[in-house]
């Protein structure tokens, strides 16, 4: 990354959102350090102050102060005049601590659910109350549209999901009631792990088995 430009600027709130969502195209360096750095490779610099409004969604632009960067391999927004775009070498950005975020989420209720059956537009699930476990299980019918597109491949009968309801306070002090439904992702075991567990299991079975 020789020749990278260092931008020791504080970031706007939405870059933090983007970072937490994992949408950035760069690579976070030294993740163990309090200060973190992000490299944007061969990005394009745009004048955000003049042209951010009207861009085809901010998802293609990372903003730092008054400057915006379009990561490599992202198309230029059609609304940007050519003269406002500067081809840039690699850019090294310093990311502020996440503690600077003013977003606040208050969780009121959480369930762990299991998809029981799926119909054309809706699905049935059994919810177990994770906030008050003494509450009885409930069966609910929900719209499939509630499932995030990124979770659709995991959405099958028997899948576990988490449903949370709460309030989200924005840095500007606005409160939103939010409902988030995510399908559980389970890390796959490596072959080595499977072999180790099977050996332990076989030893346990041999110990316990009655002739």
């Amino acid at each position: 990354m020789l020749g990278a430009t260092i931008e020791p600027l504080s970031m706007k709130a939405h870059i933090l959102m983007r970072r937490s969502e994992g949408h950035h195209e760069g690579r976070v360096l030294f993740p163990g350090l309090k200060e973190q750095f992000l490299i944007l490779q061969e990005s394009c610099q745009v004048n955000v102050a003049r042209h951010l409004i009207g861009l085809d969604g901010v998802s293609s632009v990372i903003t730092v102060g008054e400057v915006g960067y379009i990561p490599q391999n992202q198309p230029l927004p059609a609304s940007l005049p050519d003269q406002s775009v500067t081809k840039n070498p690699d850019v090294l950005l310093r990311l502020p601590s996440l503690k600077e975020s003013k977003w606040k989420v208050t969780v009121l209720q959480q369930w762990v659910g299991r998809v029981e059956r799926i119909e054309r537009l809706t699905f049935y699930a059994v919810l177990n109350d994770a906030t008050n476990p003494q509450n009885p299980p409930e069966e609910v019918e929900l719209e499939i549209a509630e499932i995030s597109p990124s979770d659709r491949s995991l959405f099958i009968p028997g899948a576990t999901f988490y449903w949370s309801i709460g309030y989200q306070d924005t840095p500007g002090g606005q409160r939103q009631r939010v409902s988030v439904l995510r399908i559980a992702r389970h890390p796959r075991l490596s072959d080595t792990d499977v072999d180790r567990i099977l050996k332990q299991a076989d030893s346990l079975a041999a110990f316990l088995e009655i002739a």
Partner: protein
Amino acid sequence: MPDTAPNPHELEISVFGPGFGECILVHVGDGDWVIVDSCIDRKSGQPIALDYLRSIGVNVASQVKLVVATHWHDDHIRGIAQVLHATPGARFVDSDAYPFKELVEMVEIGATSPSHSSATKEYHQILSILKKRQERGQRAETVGPVRAIANRRLLALTNAERALQAEVFSLSPADSSIALARAELSYALDAIKDRSRPPKQGANEFSIVLWLKVGALDVMLGADLEHVSGTTEGWRAILRSAERPSGHARFFKVPHHRSENADCPESWTELLSQQPIAVVTAHSPSRRPRPSDISRLCARTQHVLLTSDPYRYALPRRDKAVERTMNETALSRRVLSGQMGHVRVRCDARTVGENPMIELRNGAKRTCASQ
């Protein structure tokens, strides 16, 4: 007035059901008990078996002789590891349909999953309890697991000094279901290793039907055994067996919440006495038993007792914002369990002719019109 334990010569059958889950306790005479399956009482957060037995003064550590998991469905096994932990004098029984080595492999791999099922979690804990007991020097024969299969004697309390002689037999699973169980277990093991799909729950035909001979009386607990077309599996396999214990049961826990797929007409004539006492547990997710199920059952015996009504459970109270969001999001909702219904039958077991005393608690009820 405090509840009391049954007399040494009394048979007690207590069937608990909150709408989702069931547990059966049998006093087999002389203060000894058998626990079949487990469910949790939401009020106390504890297995109902332990709550009830302690409430009538039973020392669960020494007086429980057998803990049976009829099959590994969520509505039969919640809290069963806690029950076994509290009953060090009991042997643990499960179905022999699944080969033990492969079953332990599936449980141990499943236990590493962040959201392993209740069944996996319970069995994982049970294996740990059994291992510790054997390591402490208890003989394997007194600890278990005892693997139940058709016509195996699981318990014999036949000392001549006892007020009641008692024996417990398993009538199922049939030998012929082992190949199917092995294939199913192999599928489940692959699913758990892969984690790309959830494992299916085991078939009901691998469940353990129990026959208890207590003094002069016979009891049959039907688990969730189904009535399938073949003659070598399900209820027909029991009916065809020449080795099963003789007699006609006067008390019957109806299999699989009285659904059609568990209804075997011949079992009423071949295995049960005339007008037996039949107890049904509700299964709210499948809305069983339905009115048609009850009608069919009442045509067979007038003594039908239901632990709870699967249609009448109140929604829990929550924060108003949560309720609002839930009602906006969910197209329909219903609660799957309520208070812990309890059917209790006690009877002097020294002779056949004694009239039983039936108590119905917490919403349990009689269901036939003429009762």
